[in-house]
């Protein structure tokens, strides 16, 4: 039987087989590293998500500082995870394993920028965030994280109106409209995740506009009251 005799004659110690054994080791090592990075990424995601929920408690709260301090502690608990990623990917092309931890990084960028926005009313730049990531943060992950931030800003805008905070909504409107104008110009870059998130940004933008619209109209009811002229009263103390 020719098949049998050929397969029996294969030298399992040939240089060809040796190189395939090396390939096996390489492929396995790659896969193992990828798995380890995915696990770290999932850990980062879950902590970041919780930080974001905590931060929403700031809206209308009298004790913002306590919440911020709590967040700072949680952020520092993420630091060792980033160190692990840094060690795993050290001296490697940063794009080689980027897909393994992009989810975690985006969520973390979202948490960090949201924290910064609520505490300092400003957007933290890529350059400022980069050290926290020990240089492992890609620009695209920063952009995607900031796009997620706009969703949280929108939520904060809606809540703040209810909480009697009349400044935050207009601040968010101004921030979002600037970001929107800039980000929408990113469109030509063909990147599926980016396009999806840009679409969500447009929706958030419209929600914030609608909220500011009714906030504005409520002020204008003064005019209506005057018009109705049966309920004249001094409304100045209402604001």
């Amino acid at each position, binding site marked *: 039987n020719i098949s049998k005799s050929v397969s029996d004659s294969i030298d399992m110690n*040939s240089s*060809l087989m040796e190189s*395939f054994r090396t*390939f096996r080791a*390489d492929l396995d090592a790659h896969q193992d590293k990828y798995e380890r990075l995915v696990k770290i990424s999932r850990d980062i995601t879950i902590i970041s998500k919780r930080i974001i929920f905590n931060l929403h408690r700031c809206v209308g709260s009298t004790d913002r500082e306590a919440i911020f301090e709590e967040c700072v502690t949680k952020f520092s608990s993420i630091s060792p995870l980033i160190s692990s990623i840094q060690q795993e990917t050290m001296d490697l*092309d940063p794009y080689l394993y980027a897909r393994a931890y992009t989810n975690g990084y985006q969520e973390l960028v979202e948490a960090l920028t949201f924290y910064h926005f609520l505490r300092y009313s400003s957007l933290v730049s*890529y350059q400022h965030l980069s050290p926290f990531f020990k240089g492992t943060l890609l*620009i695209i992950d920063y952009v995607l994280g900031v796009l997620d931030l706009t969703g949280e800003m929108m939520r904060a805008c809606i809540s703040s109106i209810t909480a009697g905070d009349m400044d935050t909504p207009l601040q968010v409107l101004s921030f979002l409209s*600037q970001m929107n104008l800039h980000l929408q110009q990113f469109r030509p*870059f063909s990147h599926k995740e980016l396009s999806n998130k840009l679409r969500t940004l447009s929706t958030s933008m419209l929600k914030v506009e609608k909220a500011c619209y009714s906030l504005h109209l409520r002020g204008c009811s003064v005019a209506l009251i005057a018009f109705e002229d049966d309920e004249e009263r001094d409304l100045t103390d209402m604001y």
Partner: protein
Amino acid sequence: SEVHDIFTTLRSQLTVDQEVKESLQRLLEPLEESVRELYTSLQAIHNPGKQSIHSICEKGDVMLLTSREKLGALICAVPIGRYYKFNFMWSFCMQRLVTCISLIHFLRNGTLITQVQVSNNLLIESDKFNLTLEDYLVGVLILASELSRLTVNSVIQGDYQRPYDIFKFVSELNAGFKLLHFKNDHLRKKYDSLKYDIRRIEEVVYDLTLRGLIPETEETKIEETQ
């Protein structure tokens, strides 16, 4: 404003990326063109007419000169440390190159060219550009597919020796691939097709054996090919 500055910076960075990508794309196109021509010219092995396999390989060598040059231009343009950001762009091209180079090598030497040999052949400097293991392996699997087709065409052309050589070679390849663990990806799918390729080759060899069309010095020849 602050936001304006941040986004202006981001946009210019992303624009640079985009421009790098476009310039790579422009350099990639002539490479693809030359690889396609190389591949097409090697296809002549299936229906060689008056050409000898030997001359087809030589013609391939000549065409490789062009591919090597176009690849060189591309390599120059790849930014250092960002190889894996763009390598999906030329992945298909590299696989085809591996197939072509390993085909010529097999036809001449009857052996598998190594990943390093292919890199050297293509003058790839490994610090900023490299032939990934995946592309090498996919290229080799496509080689097996070509060889499977070649067994059939060899018989049509009355060459009963080559099927045996190919069978021996692909069997060893198969034993090598069996050592590997894949994920559910493109590579795995290609590897699955190897089973069918080798079965077809084996069938041809079986057909020849059955009809006594074994070349006389078969035992010896197989020995030699290795």
